[in-house]
């Protein structure tokens, strides 16, 4: 049974790594230009359907752009947004959480109140409002998804820090005259990381889905750049006449996110079973 558990996680890992590799190699691997459009090739079906051609294995979209190429380049966007936003949120959250947990008092109060306000804010409304101000674009979407996600990391980091604050090794380090920053960096942070890695993994999955939702509402990476969410959005008016437009990006998201979730499950079992399960 354990072997099966590891087996499943391995498959997940392979899927994720393969996506990342394909994404990086997209310019070399993609059969066609994902952005240049050609009206004459519009809406050709996948090659196993009548009317399809080997030049476009998974068909073309409403502007004649090759679906396979757009999927490959879209992987870049989804993975970059997913990881970057989580890294940003994680860094911000850990920093704030460490500080709040270590120093406590007023600072802690303030930070936690801010976190509560942030959480009570309907996430999508915040995203819509901010993106309307700064405009959509890869950087801005990463910024919005990153800056709004710090709270969970902050809380975990804070909890861990608070419980570690009074432990012996920290006390002795302080007695020896070590500076706060050094203590946080050397002693506290390594303990904070394992539960965070688990949370972060699941966050990447959720962020990829969040980016797709933003694109669905018209706020994601603007055209003509391919992103899986935008492809889904373009395909939604062609569900019956061009079903391949919505199916393949959906399967791509499903595949990658599934892989990440499976890896995250495994990580959680391995690293820190104490973390609230199923986050």
């Amino acid at each position, binding site marked *: *049974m354990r072997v099966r558990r590891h087996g499943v996680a391995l498959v997940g890992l392979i899927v994720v790594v393969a996506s990342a590799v394909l994404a990086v190699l997209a310019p070399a691997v993609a059969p066609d230009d994902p952005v240049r459009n050609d009206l004459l090739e519009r809406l050709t079906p996948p090659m196993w359907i009548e009317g399809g051609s080997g030049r476009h294995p998974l068909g073309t979209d409403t502007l004649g752009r090759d679906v396979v190429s757009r999927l490959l380049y879209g992987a870049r966007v989804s993975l970059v947004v997913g990881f970057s936003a989580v890294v940003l949120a994680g860094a911000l959250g850990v920093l704030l959480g460490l500080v709040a947990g270590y120093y406590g008092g007023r600072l802690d109060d303030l930070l*936690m*109140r*801010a976190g*509560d*306000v942030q*959480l*009570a*804010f*309907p*996430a*999508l*409304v*915040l995203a*819509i*409002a*901010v993106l*309307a*101000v700064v405009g959509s674009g890869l950087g801005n979407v990463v910024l919005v998804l990153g800056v709004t996600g710090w709270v969970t990391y902050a*809380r975990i980091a804070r909890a861990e820090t608070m419980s570690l604050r009074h432990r012996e090794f920290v006390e002795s380090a302080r007695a020896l005259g070590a500076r706060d920053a050094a203590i946080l960096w050397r002693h506290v942070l390594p303990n904070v990381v394992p539960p965070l890695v688990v949370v972060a993994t699941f966050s990447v*999955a959720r962020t990829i*889905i969040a980016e*797709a*939702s933003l694109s*669905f*509402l018209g706020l994601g990476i603007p055209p003509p750049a391919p992103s899986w*969410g935008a492809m*889904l959005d373009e395909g*939604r008016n062609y*569900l*019956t006449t061009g*079903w391949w437009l*919505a199916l393949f990006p*959906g399967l791509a*998201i*499903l595949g990658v*996110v*599934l892989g990440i*979730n*499976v890896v995250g499950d495994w990580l959680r079992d391995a690293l820190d079973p104490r973390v*609230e*399960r*199923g*986050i």
Partner: protein
Amino acid sequence: MRAFLLRRLVHAVFVVWGVVTVVFFLVRLTGDPAALLVDQTATREEIARTRTLLGLDRPLHVQYLDFLRDAPRGDFGLSLRERRPAMRMVLEHFWPATAQLAFAAIVLSTVLPIPLGVVAATRRDGLVDHASRLGSLFLQSMPSFWLGLMLILLFAVGLGGLLPAYGSGTLRHLILPAVTLAAAPLAQNVRLIRAGMLEVLQHDYVRTARAKGLGERRVVYGHALRNAAVPFLTVSGLSLGFMLSGTIVIETVFSWPGLGRLIVQAVPGRDFPVIQAAVFVFAVLFVAVNLVVDLLQGWLDPRARVFERSA
């Protein structure tokens, strides 16, 4: 207990005030709604005149103070587009449409997982266990609107209109949107219950209860579930907030005439009063639910209440 409650209430009010203030200034940064209310052939003077008409040319702090004065009385101003009281509009859209949807989704995603999670945990590695884990994994890995579109394709288009693809009004209309909204939280909760039950079932007091000869069902539902429920409740409270956000997307896909659709139009339309009123309602609901969850947790697990949790 009373001090605890009071403290939590004050905290709740603060959070709502914080959210509403952030929104107030944030939306005013998104730009000028006056340009949207006039024709394409308008001139700058006409737009300036519209701004004056709507009271938008007053200094920001004056607008804010007026807002703080009027809001507690329920007066969030008139919608810039519909010229009707904004709070009334928000409540109209929330009740019954979004309330029905959210309620149905909450019921589905909290009630259904309990038997599923329990069975999965007690009959570990059985069919239900594997099926529910696989299903949960899948449901949590897809965007909700994609699930919605696929369901529309299957039930409304494919099976010849078995279920309606749009609109509200009857129970039949509620099924697809509620199921779509509930899918991811349901999946998450099944895994949570299962995991919590698994952990708890190993503990000493469970073995003690069994040794005492208590019926299996009492052991499982009486003791184990009660303790497994604690983390499940914590996450549920947060989930609800995300569910309210989720209605925005689901209502768009299913043409459900609720608060989500109103927001999706109000934000690009820069309808400040409506946005403020809607966010206020969301925040109040979120905070209220979390308060209830906290109290439930305290009742279920006395240990949880001892330390001040700012969660």
